[in-house]
């Protein structure tokens, strides 16, 4: 589990060739594993570069993509808005940790011509 400062959670999808690969396939395809590791490192480097507050790139494997925990809402917004710049795609869901209840709640990200809204 992340520390208490991380309020937001997002997932950046794997590159197209690595998506929806089972563990069995990944065992037989070290090239894909390497590509995924490189992708995770790229996400980490970009986060270091563009995020102003704390973040954590989850090292646990997830079939959907790279999981990121962030402290700042402004960072989350920038991260979503700047996706085309880094040629990646996030899963259109944002999870937030409620400081009062500790509950992790998932929200849908909806793209609109003027920006993004949460449904």
């Amino acid at each position: 589990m992340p520390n208490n400062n991380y309020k937001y959670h997002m997932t950046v999808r794997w590159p197209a060739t690595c998506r929806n690969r089972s563990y069995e396939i990944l065992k037989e395809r070290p090239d894909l594993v390497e590509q995924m590791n490189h992708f995770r490192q790229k996400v980490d480097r970009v986060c270091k570069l563009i995020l102003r507050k704390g973040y954590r790139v989850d090292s646990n494997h997830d079939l959907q993509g790279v999981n990121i925990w962030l402290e700042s809402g402004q960072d989350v917004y920038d991260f979503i808005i700047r996706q085309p710049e880094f040629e990646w795609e996030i899963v259109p869901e944002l999870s937030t940790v409620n400081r009062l209840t500790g509950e992790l709640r998932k929200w849908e990200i909806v793209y609109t011509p003027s920006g993004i809204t949460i449904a």
Partner: protein
Amino acid sequence: MNPENCVVIGPAVLQYDKDALLAFADVILAGNAHKTNEVPYATVSSETRLQDMLNSPVFRNTTILAPDSLYRKYVFFEQIDCLPSLPAVKNTGKKTDELSEQSLALMLAQWMDKKHIYLFGYDIENLDERAVLLSIMGSNNFAHIYYVRKPNPSKIRLFDSYENVSVIDYKQFDKIRNAK
């Protein structure tokens, strides 16, 4: 500070030292009416008031709790969180986002399992608010609620039928505060 106590500050006039209240218990502020002191929690149900709170430095370290519909719009502001599911809402016959900030603050205090809830600056002149307050009081048997007001010789009979509700004045509250 006794964790079993909670002070709810409503939007009406409050002539009591807020620092003393903050030292006495967890404080839940209803809206932005009394924004002179930093408080741990605030409830909000109006977008304009929420915007004012986000622009006020005094709320920088406050957990601002809003209904779902409002929270979705301001999800990228870290101070804001979503109100938990409040069981007392059902008894009011309204939805969470139709309730006033003071009602939400009182329900939040109940949700926190506080045993003694002190209402300061709580507006009971508005008849709708009064009806909601009575339904909240009727739905709760765990907490003792104190309606705290300025010393006033005229009695309030409104809460007489509720065993878990008392009307006290600032002097009586001083005695409670000094005893604890």
